[in-house]
């Protein structure tokens, strides 16, 4: 092969690759332009903050989901898990008021409780999947029902509400911010950056991709497959806990309908972002773009009255399917 031939090849590959990488980004830019044209308020500080802050819950969870999917797994339980964590957190904090009084220490304890509950729930999923060797789909389908039912039971079919004084104290975690940027946005950004580093620059990220690409190869390369796989679910569980910490101050309550369909939104965001559903390749920044695309669709439909907001789900569905079709075309052209 001549030098020139290699060069042309390399350049061609690069261009094609870039186009695929840019796909989700271009879609995001197109949505922003569309939104700005349809409604002048779209780019206002208020709207941008609103969209980003509300994306934060799904976004934080979707970052964790990216690791799970990259390692060849799936977690359907995150929505129910979020509701359950919120329920445990609220009950725990309410019942500790007589002991600790309303104050920042109690809120910190509540946060720790949320993280711990998420961590534990993720650990249960992970151990059942990697040690007991039950299909991830089955395990998390089961735990999805279990957590949903538990939170409904804890709330006795109604709503669990955080103590009123506590709520006032906790409120700024969602509504407040730092230098004009809301806390949920800051936390989401930090999680995304940390996730990107973890995925692209550490052995853990590389191992996740290896396991998802071919578990046998990973095993024969002395990768501790069970531990890494469990870790993806634990990480996701802890991030569900973190998302719940940001979510509870928004409404100050949890019920059987908290977090419904979050799992689907999180999975959709991961797939739109270019992570391969059957594992082996994951992209955190793509997931972030995916989350933003989904919330912008929602937001634009609400602001512009061209299409009914009730069709939101339908449009998001089309976007997900389209993203997968594009992903497949990339595969074909690589051959």
């Amino acid at each position, binding site marked *: *092969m001549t030098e020139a*031939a*290699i060069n*042309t*090849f*390399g350049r*061609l*590959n690069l261009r094609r690759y870039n186009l695929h990488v840019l796909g989700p980004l271009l879609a995001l830019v197109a949505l922003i332009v569309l939104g700005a044209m349809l409604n002048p308020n779209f780019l206002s500080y208020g709207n941008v903050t609103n969209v980003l802050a509300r994306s934060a819950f799904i976004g934080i969870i979707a970052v964790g989901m990216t690791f799970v999917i990259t390692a060849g797994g799936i977690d359907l339980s995150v929505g129910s898990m979020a509701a359950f964590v919120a329920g445990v957190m609220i009950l725990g904090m309410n019942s500790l008021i007589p002991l600790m009084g309303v104050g920042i220490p109690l809120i910190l304890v509540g946060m720790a409780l949320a993280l711990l509950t998420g961590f534990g729930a993720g650990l249960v999923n992970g151990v059942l999947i990697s040690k007991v060797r039950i299909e991830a789909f089955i395990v998390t389908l089961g735990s999805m029902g279990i957590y949903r039912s538990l939170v409904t039971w804890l709330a006795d079919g109604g709503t669990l509400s955080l103590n009123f004084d506590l709520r006032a104290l906790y409120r700024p975690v969602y509504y407040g911010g730092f230098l004009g940027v809301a806390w949920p946005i800051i936390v989401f950004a930090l999680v995304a950056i940390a996730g990107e*580093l973890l995925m692209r*620059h*550490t*052995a853990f990220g*590389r*191992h996740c*991709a*290896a396991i998802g*690409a*071919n578990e*046998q*190869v*990973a*095993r*024969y*390369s*002395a*990768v*501790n497959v069970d531990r890494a796989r469990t870790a993806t679910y634990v990480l996701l569980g802890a991030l569900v806990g973190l998302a719940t910490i940001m979510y509870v101050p928004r409404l100050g309550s949890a019920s059987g309908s908290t977090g419904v369909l979050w799992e689907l939104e999180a999975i959709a965001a991961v797939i739109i972002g270019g992570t391969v559903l059957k594992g*082996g*390749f994951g992209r955190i920044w793509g997931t972030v773009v995916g989350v933003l695309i989904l919330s912008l669709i929602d937001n634009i439909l609400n602001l512009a009255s061209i299409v009914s907001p009730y069709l939101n789900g339908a449009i998001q569905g089309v976007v997900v399917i389209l993203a997968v079709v594009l992903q497949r075309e990339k595969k074909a052209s*690589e051959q």
Partner: protein
Amino acid sequence: MEALLGLNGISHWFGPIQVLFDVNLELHPGEVHALIGENGAGKSTMMKIMSGYLQPTEGTLQLDGNPIRFGSLEDAEAAGIIMIHQEFNLALQLTVEENIFLGREKRRGLFLDQKAMQAESRALLERLNCPIDPRRKISDISVPNRQMVEIAKALGRDARVLIMDEPTAVLTNRETDTLLEQIDRLRKAGTAILYTSHKLNEVSRIADRVTVLRDGHKVLEAPSRELSEHRMAEAMVGRSLSTLFPAKAEAKSETVLEVRGLTVPGHVEDASFILHRGEVLGFAGLVGSGRTELMEGVVGLRNASGEVRVNGVSIKPGSALAAREAGLAYLTEDRKDKGLLLGKNLRENLTLLALDRFTRIAIDRRAEEQALSRAIEEFDIRAGDREMLAGNLSGGNQQKLLLAKTMLAEPDIVIIDEPTRGIDIGTKQQIYGFISRLAAEGKSVIVISSELPEVIGLATRVIVMARGRIAGELEGERITEDAILRLAMELAEPKAEVE
């Protein structure tokens, strides 16, 4: 006699790269035509063109003397041209019968006529001397039997031309004999057969004509009785091959690995052996005799009981990580499913086993790139482009990459399972060179191989396994094909389906 299938002036390009140059080839009924060449010589492309997977950039195909174009695999199949792949095209969860009739099921009214299909499957398999129950699942039968099912499937489709891509790569000598007998029978029945193999002794035995490809050019075509194996090999490689195996080095007396009473449930029973520093120890035995399972037990990839001592220190059983840290490395026989991530680039494959050497908190990508450059040079990995995927490398280069990956972990003891399976003779020679160099550098090497000349040519001591037990040990002058085979068969006749 008129050719059944003729290829005239075939040239083919992949993008800007030409891989075939004006190649002619004819297949006649009742003739076995062997197509041989190194990995990357263009054999696969030729086979794909014949079987309708690819349309040639230039040149024509003729069927019974009439020009023909195959738009797809189905077109070629309809014309009676059927390819049997190296990687089987069988649905593992379906039965033998369901596979043989896949896509052309027999019906009676609305429902499948299972009785008729089973009877026909049985008849086809009997013709091949392979009495397996058509109701068994593919996943439950042995690899050689799967090969027979593939052939039965082709026969069931009235194959006039059978294209066989290295059908014996996964077979033992005995199984190969059976297969060659079947091929002979097919030839007598008037089937035209294109046969590829890296094993030149088979080619001499079975082929009527031999075509040699090198770098996309046809360099030789002759009746096989006029060619010696040596002549074929030299035509493939394009240079003279003086000695395939390097000189054996003397092992030291120091024991580096001691395995005592190792049992891998269902596969290996009570195996004990030792390995010396600087030694190349061969492991021979039939497929299914437990060689691979024993080594997987030693390096913690399988549950095993017994004791493994490295340099006198006992290592934790069942932990691949502990074995690696003790300096043990196992290079799998199954490079596509267990060795390499075919969809990842060379760099990520290279460093996967020794990733902790490149990691503090983050992975040092520069160091990885440097390691790749060194590996490409040291192991002569021929990749068109550093960023290419491991799956796009030729088999020989994949094996070199796997070797480089294993050596990057700097093991003291390297266990290499089938070091040259499916690899051309030029690369084989290189790999033998690497192995003997490792031993000379003071590493200790275990080579598992089904190819007896390989074990005999490399090892200073050979352990033979039979039915999950160590049947005996041979040293120095006593290592002969005859002695190994006698030990391998010693304990009664192994069943046809041990695996």
